[in-house]
């Protein structure tokens, strides 16, 4: 008899566990791997505040996220770029109206060793350095030393911004050193007086020196007013104007005291 009671108890618990997620609200988010760390952090905090909501999160790239919004396969699409005309057309044909929400800014700063006298580099100088056309600091007004170019692995979001804003479709030359994270770029640059690298604004510290670009220094202000050239807005797209749980989540993300605080923690520039 006791055994039966025990078994039925287990049965009830199992049922409860299987049914409860079905009762809870579920938000599906898909898209850009650049926005992923932000979304992940905010989603974790949101689920902690609202235990009955479960958020399933996956990467796959901005294009895939927007495609999923058009196909109705996701509630929110993360994107590191604005939607393209072609995609809007496709969406309208399917009767879907994607609504963009800017959630953060991504700002990439070129950095050099603190002992390097270089203060400013223009966009075209940066491009030539990364293409391997300029190989000596002398040519950009520095000491007569070889330039050691440090770049990120090609699948990172940081590299993507650099490629889009600086390289303009040209390739980074093969002699560039590759580092797998912003942390190790900063490590490599701080240990080498010949090096130049680039990191997200959240990774700046006093072991490396930020270089101004076209005489604009990188800061939250210059990113927000658009004068710093190597930055971009990050978006979340919803299918139509958001309602219910999705709209609550978007509000949470853009809330200066909640989501935007986490945006700053992950190393991006918050909206306000």
């Amino acid at each position, binding site marked *: 008899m006791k055994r039966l009671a025990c078994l039925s108890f287990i049965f009830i618990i199992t049922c409860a566990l299987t049914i409860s997620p079905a009762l809870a609200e579920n938000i599906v988010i898909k898209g850009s*791997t650049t926005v992923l760390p932000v979304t992940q952090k905010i989603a974790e905090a949101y689920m902690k505040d609202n235990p009955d909501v479960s958020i399933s999160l996956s*990467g*796959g*790239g901005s294009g*895939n996220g927007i495609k999923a919004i058009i196909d109705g396969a996701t509630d929110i699409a993360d994107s590191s770029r604005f939607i393209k005309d072609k995609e809007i057309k496709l969406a309208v044909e399917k009767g879907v109206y994607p609504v963009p929400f800017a959630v953060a800014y991504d700002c990439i700063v070129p950095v050099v060793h603190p002992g390097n006298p270089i203060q400013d580099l223009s966009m075209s100088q940066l491009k030539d350095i990364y293409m391997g056309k300029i190989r000596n600091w002398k040519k950009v007004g520095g000491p007569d*030393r*070889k330039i*050691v170019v440090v770049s990120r*692995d*090609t*699948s*990172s979001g940081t*590299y993507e911004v650099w490629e889009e804003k600086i390289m303009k479709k040209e*390739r980074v030359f*093969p*002699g*560039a*050193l*590759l*580092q*797998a994270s912003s942390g*190790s770029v900063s*490590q*490599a640059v701080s*240990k*080498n007086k*010949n*090096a130049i690298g680039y990191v997200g604004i959240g990774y700046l510290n006093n072991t490396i020196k930020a270089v101004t670009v076209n005489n604009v220094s990188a800061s939250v202000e210059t990113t927000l007013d658009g004068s710093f050239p190597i930055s971009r807005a990050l978006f979340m797209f919803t299918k139509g104007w958001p309602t219910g749980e999705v709209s609550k989540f978007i509000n949470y993300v853009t809330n200066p005291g909640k989501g935007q605080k986490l945006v700053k923690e992950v190393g991006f520039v918050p909206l306000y």
Partner: protein
Amino acid sequence: MNRLLKERLMRYVFFTVATASITILLLIVAFLFREGLPIFSKVSISDFIFGKYWYPTSDPPDFGIFALISASVLVTVVSAAMSVPLGVMTAVYLAEIASFRIREIVKPLVELLAALPSVVIGFFGMVVVAPFLQDVFGIATGLNLFNAALMLAFMAIPTICSISEDAIYSVPTSLKEASLALGATRLETIIRVVLPASASGVSTAIILGMSRAIGETMVVLMVAGGAAMVPESLFDPVRPLPASIAAEMAEAPFRGDHYYALFATGIVLFLFTFMFNLIADHIAHKYKQTGEASL
């Protein structure tokens, strides 16, 4: 009857246990090939292996891993050039020359080098050796082929030393005694008798050490620099195969071309280590020292 049944049962249990690792290996290899082969519908095998440019995320992408292969091979060769003499000579010293007490202290210490996690060795190379190389040699960057090879040599030495020491130590005493009795000096005995007699064990040790070096990931990711080009000098940055896989796999789109290409890179790496192991096995069998007459 019961005892017989038990006996048979135990046989099956042990057979299953013994085949489990082989099954797992086969499954991993099958998975590796399943995920890697689709790239060859986009790029031909020769373009993949001999292609000079590795730009997996450009539009259009280039999937050529020649620079990565040459980096892996060069780093392994240079590290072997450092670790083989050191490892084998240490082994000779420990087995033939050192007193029992020194041997008992030094051998465990050398083997302790193998216990150092590779990330620690990598960090050491990045933070200590790289700035040192920059300052002393006046080179552009300390994260380069030489630094990576040096760190890998640290990792290969314990493997090479420990296995060759066992091989040298197990050379029959009668051989050595005969040589000494004929008037050969100790050095002549070691070079002409002991080393040839233990050749198969020593070669196995060297090849296993090299296969460890070629497959090592963390160290090369941290200290090799990561430039996807064929190096022109010993102090150029390089990107060996494992470093490329480790750096890019996390964010390559699942089942995209880049993902397939990285798995195909894994296949190439697997073929390299597989070849090394085959050669080691072959040498161990062919030049096996059986009895004292075959020398």
